[in-house]
């Protein structure tokens, strides 16, 4: 399946240069400013903040059972992440790959690595420099939802882009 994801990533090599790196309004999405027009630096209303990245751009993509293929929805989220990272070049990111609990521990570690890498390759295909993106897999060791139903499992099969450094502090 990682071959498939590589092919998907290679097919999307056309770089989108529409966004100006210095123009936050080009990031798209709602919530660029606070309700009364004030912008609190570092808050979710600040388009340059990690909180904005996490909540408005969307820091995670989800996967089907045992798969690492990026769905169209996942590709849309990653496109937003790529745009944000290109607009905010001071940030670097670690992409965490995760699996649900329906699998053996070591296989799920490898599966999480596949998922993290699929997200990383997509971001690279959209122009983000590879040296800004590291990956780690947690397998099934770090679920965010702990019920044992598909509703929870689907949220645990994820790749989460965690911003890990910025000169903005």
């Amino acid at each position, binding site marked *: 399946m990682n071959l498939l994801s590589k092919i998907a990533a290679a097919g999307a090599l056309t770089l989108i240069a529409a966004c100006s790196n210095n123009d936050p309004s080009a990031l798209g999405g709602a919530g660029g400013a606070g309700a009364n027009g004030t912008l609190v630096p570092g808050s979710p209303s600040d388009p340059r903040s990690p909180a904005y990245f996490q909540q408005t751009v969307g820091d995670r993509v989800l996967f089907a059972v045992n798969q690492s293929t990026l769905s169209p929805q996942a590709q849309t989220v990653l496109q937003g992440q790529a745009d944000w990272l290109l607009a905010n070049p001071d940030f670097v990111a670690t992409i965490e790959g995760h699996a649900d*609990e*329906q699998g*053996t*521990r070591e296989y799920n570690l490898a599966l999480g690595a596949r998922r993290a890498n*699929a997200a990383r390759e997509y971001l690279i295909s959209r122009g983000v420099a590879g040296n800004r993106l590291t990956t*780690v897999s947690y397998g099934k060791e770090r679920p965010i939802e702990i019920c*044992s139903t598909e509703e929870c499992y689907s949220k645990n099969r994820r790749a989460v882009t965690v911003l890990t450094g910025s000169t903005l502090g």
Partner: protein
Amino acid sequence: MMKLLTSLFVGLTLLAAPVHAQSGPLRLEIDEGIIEPLPFAVPNFVPDGPAAAQYAQDISRVIVSDLTGTGLFREISADAFISRVSSFDAPVQFPDWKAINAQALVTGAVNVSGKRLTVRFRVWDVFSGQELGNGLQFAGTTDGWRRMAHKVADQVYSRITGEGAYFDSRVAFVSESGPKDQRRKRLAIMDYDGANVQYLTDSAAIVLAPRFSPSGDRLLYTSYETGQPRIYLLDVGRVQRQELPTEAGTMSFSPRFSPDGRSIVYSLSQGGNTDLWKMDLATRQSVRLTNTPAIETAPSYSPDGSQIVFESDRSGSPQLYIMPATGGEATRISFGQGRYGTPVWSPRGDLIAFTKQNKGRFHIGVMRTNGDEERLLTASFLDEGPTWSPNGRVIMFTRETQGASGRSALYSVDISGRNLRPVRTPDGGSDPSWGPLQN
């Protein structure tokens, strides 16, 4: 470290006893499938003084617990005893033990002198009125009383079944506490029965899947202490660990020793792809064993070191494969329905234990090394990660219960599929690795 000396107890003379109406000597043929456990009696070992009294009682209890825990033996309670054994050297009153249908009888004596503990014992075939093997004594320090009890039980088990035993052995595992989304994990070792737990790491970093070296002196495991999964080698006696250097990649995990303990095989992920590598522990040099775009992990050597069984999803779903230990062409051996993982070669060489996932359930199973005669031994919401007892009769594994309050625990099961039982640990437990019989 305790020194345990084993010696023939030469002061004993064999009793000449008539052979009774039993067709042969006492022998439990466990390969034929035991339905009815063999009844046995262990009258409290005779203490030679007040200092030995508690030890004598405790040692007797551990021997009974070891034997009954196999599911192959049934204890006859002391309430039923007709004879009292108040002297180790007095003749055994066989009619009294026959009357309560004790087929095997274990008698013993305990001496404590300062910190030194000596255990003597004999195993009797009640119906023939003969001793099985010779009287033996074990000597050590009082701290090691449980090990001496396990050694006696190992002798009893071996003499009656004719097979190797497993009671004087240890298990490495991951001790788990906290809910599933905040689980804290620590590396630990314990006696096979859950006693004497010793923690080897704190819970600051996730630790996974320890593996005992063939001689039991070292452990391999995976830890996130650098932030990335990496493999570590730990000296059990000194509790000193070192990271093993691997090729550049995002993570290394799933390490296992070769049977000679000189090299390891492990998984390395590079660019999202996971392959198997082998490292020489003396030179720390690694060579690649597989090179496919599929996931290859969970390797396990054959006991002779010539082959490796592993898990790969090269066919589209995780299945079991065997390849030469040097790499090369792999042969698929699992063909049943579902997904197969975590293969572990039996110490006898004849079977491979595995985890199977099918129709929403998990199983521990065994198959022949060519994939024939697959048998599922367990079924639950989540069973995984089998490890073999030193004699290849028993499999220990992880069982996790479902839902938000789900907890993981260690269980063991006989390879017949009988005698499923929990292994008592202070907190939750996972990823057991059963070490060798100790010297």
